[in-house]
């Protein structure tokens, strides 16, 4: 079920009403579990078995880890959990990629391998829920939390429908305890949740989906366009992926708030970052911190020699890229981001911009503005790899940008549509800039008086969605990851 569908618009109020009619926490958890399975099964009920399997494995292994005092056994149970989750993920997501590369390698050395591809459907959200459930067994192993003995709570934690298919990837230490405490309806939280959902829908349906139209055309045949159009295509993709993914996160977080849950912030206005280190503290925060806590730090983090620290940086960026998809483009994208990050690390500049930019001023300083533009330019370059079908295509796209037509007007059909999309991007950036100290830009609306002025803004956003959305339901990009 897509958040931007009629089905969800009917599903959500029904589940919301039933949920608050139930008085007991356990009954609410049972409802969440059932609703989450319905939500996921709407897409393909066959893969519910995978979620159930993942849930049962980690629920039992979590208990076994906690029960055992033998360190070897504890480690064995942890490895079993990691192996099971990564095994499921590896088979469904990476099987054909590895076969393809093995075959290429063997062909290069003159021999042929005769085992083949499999017709595998990638289950939606598999990368998200396997990482979420792994965080549970790892944290139990690290004695950061006690294992749960309540299978309903644990099942609801793994399959919690607002964030099941595209995150934020929650830590068990944050989300699981919320299933165990009594949840009371909070008017202010619910209203702000609705605001966040609205903002998420606007970013997805108006910004991302309209940008996607131009991105798909330009990236399909870059040779047909001038260099300036290719740059425009890359800019549109930068905002498509931001609108799409951060929009999803906003809807997920907002929906969770309606049910009395608090999820972690996943995006913190990343395009206002002044360097790549800041960008990665603000982009897909739940994944970056997951890799930091469960991969970077166990590898040694920034301790030890500088060489080892740089090696660790490359590892987490490349693994993070590979997490996105079974294609070399994602690996290069990760590697490129590591390359952008490493100089900051070497010169000890990676923690320079820890506080939000110019919170007391309306405009950024000239220096900050230049830093923001340079950082955006670097992300743009990396996004070209992320969006291209192959690494060769990405290099070809970039090579086409370096021509005199870079200084011409973009030459795209439906130029008015492109201008309109740029106008909406401008509105989004303005709203996000003015609301950058809040969790989401509409949060500041709560201070607006009188009420009609707030409502006018909400209604204008609703009308913008209705008038400018693409009319076919478009899945979120991160569903494929």
């Amino acid at each position, binding site marked *: 079920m897509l958040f931007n569908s009629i089905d969800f618009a009917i599903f959500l109020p029904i589940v919301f009403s039933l949920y608050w009619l139930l008085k007991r926490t356990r009954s609410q958890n049972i409802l969440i579990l059932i609703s989450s399975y319905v939500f996921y099964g709407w897409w393909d009920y066959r893969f519910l078995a995978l979620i159930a399997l993942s849930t049962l494995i980690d629920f039992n292994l979590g208990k076994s880890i906690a029960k055992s005092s033998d360190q070897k056994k504890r480690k064995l149970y942890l490895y079993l959990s990691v192996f099971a989750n990564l095994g499921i993920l590896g088979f469904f997501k990476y099987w054909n990629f590895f076969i393809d590369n093995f075959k290429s390698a063997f062909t290069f050395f003159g021999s042929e391998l005769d085992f083949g591809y499999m017709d595998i459907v990638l289950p939606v959200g598999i990368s998200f829920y396997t990482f979420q459930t792994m965080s549970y067994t790892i944290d139990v192993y690290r004695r950061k939390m006690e294992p749960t003995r309540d299978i309903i709570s644990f099942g609801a934690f793994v399959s919690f429908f607002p964030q099941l298919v595209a995150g934020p990837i929650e830590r068990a230490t944050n989300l699981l305890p919320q299933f165990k405490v009594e949840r009371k309806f909070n*008017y202010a939280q619910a209203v702000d949740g609705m605001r966040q959902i609205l903002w998420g829908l606007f970013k997805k349906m108006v910004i991302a989906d309209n940008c996607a139209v131009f991105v798909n055309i330009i990236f399909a045949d870059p040779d047909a366009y001038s260099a300036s159009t290719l740059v425009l295509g890359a800019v549109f993709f930068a905002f498509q992926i931001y609108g799409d993914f951060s929009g999803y996160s906003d809807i997920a977080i907002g929906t969770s708030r309606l049910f009395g849950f608090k999820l972690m912030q996943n995006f913190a206005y990343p395009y206002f970052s002044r360097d790549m280190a800041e960008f990665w503290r603000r982009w897909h925060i739940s994944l970056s911190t997951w890799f930091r806590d469960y991969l970077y730090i166990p590898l040694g983090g920034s301790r030890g020699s500088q060489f080892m620290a740089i090696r660790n940086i490359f590892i987490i960026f490349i693994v993070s890229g590979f997490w996105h998809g079974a294609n070399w483009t994602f690996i290069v994208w990760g590697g490129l981001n590591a390359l952008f990050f490493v100089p900051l690390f070497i010169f000890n500049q990676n923690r320079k911009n820890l506080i939000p930019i110019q919170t007391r001023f309306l405009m950024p300083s000239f220096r900050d503005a230049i830093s923001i533009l340079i950082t955006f330019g670097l992300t743009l370059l990396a996004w070209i790899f992320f969006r291209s079908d192959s690494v060769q295509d990405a290099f070809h796209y970039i090579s086409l940008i370096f021509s005199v037509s870079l200084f011409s007007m973009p030459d795209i059909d439906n130029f008015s549509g492109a201008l309109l999309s740029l106008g909406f991007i401008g509105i989004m950036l303005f709203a996000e800039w003015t609301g950058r100290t809040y969790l989401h830009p509409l949060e500041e609306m709560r201070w607006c008086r009188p009420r009609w002025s707030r409502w006018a803004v909400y209604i204008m956003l609703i009308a913008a969605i209705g*008038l400018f959305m693409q009319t076919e339901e478009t899945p979120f990009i991160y569903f494929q990851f």
Partner: protein
Amino acid sequence: MKRFLKISVVFTIVAMMGYFVLVFVTRSFFPSNYAYLVNVPYVPSGQGHLKARIDDIQQFSDIDILVIGSSHAYRGFDPRLFEAHGYSMFNLGSSAQSPIQSYYFLQKYIDQLNPKLVIIEVFPKTFSSDGIESGVDLISNCPMDIQLTEMALGFTNIKPFNSLLYRIADQGVLNHTYPQEHNAGLDHYVSGGYVERQAGNQKSYTIPDSISLKLDKKQLKAFEKTINLLKNKNISFVLVQAPVTKELYHSFRETEPFNKLMSSYGMYYNFNEIELLQDSVLFYDSDHLNQRGTEKFNKILFDTLSDEIP
């Protein structure tokens, strides 16, 4: 919780009103050349002459033949040629009319027109379409009623919904009227629902190598309802696939299953299999017959159907 529900209900009502106003204001603000940028494809008295047809239909009742279908219907069945043989005809075709709209038209006009025979023009592409283009044409030009509203909402698509809102504001509240010119560009509206275009205006066209005809379940359901409606009223009907250029016809995949399916519903004639109608000079584009083509087609059609017409 009570407060939240109360505010939600009030907000929903206010938002609906606000949305209605903003749809109208935004669509009015965009010049007609740029109207495609907003999801309000409302075009009264547009290319297909549907407004003229709907105004014209009031004069017709108890006819011999009713034609329903897409632009192949209103550009391919000339009532004057049938009148010459002593048969009255009304052509209720409309642009991209899909079975959903055909069913709407039949429900609305079948009792008034009381035809002896209904010719259902079946163009494979309309069976695989979502019907929205034609739906918006009806919303822009047909009288407002419950069935039209039901049809608009039944699409669960924002375009027909917005067009309906705009129509309510434009024609219902502001009383704007859009009389249709009978001569528009190369087209000439002929009483009885037909649109004539003379030969010699052939447009260049490109046709994809292969067009898939994946039939839409909703369209098939509407088509079956149409057939049942006619059967329940004991009205004879024939299914006719009107001629298109041979290049277009041959680009359709799955023509055989479509022909088989249509034959299963009743008497079915596919005029794309007839060599005489495959000359490109009979068409003004890839799809549509010009007047010379229509005359030739209607002659063959009349000879073929003469036994079917009661």
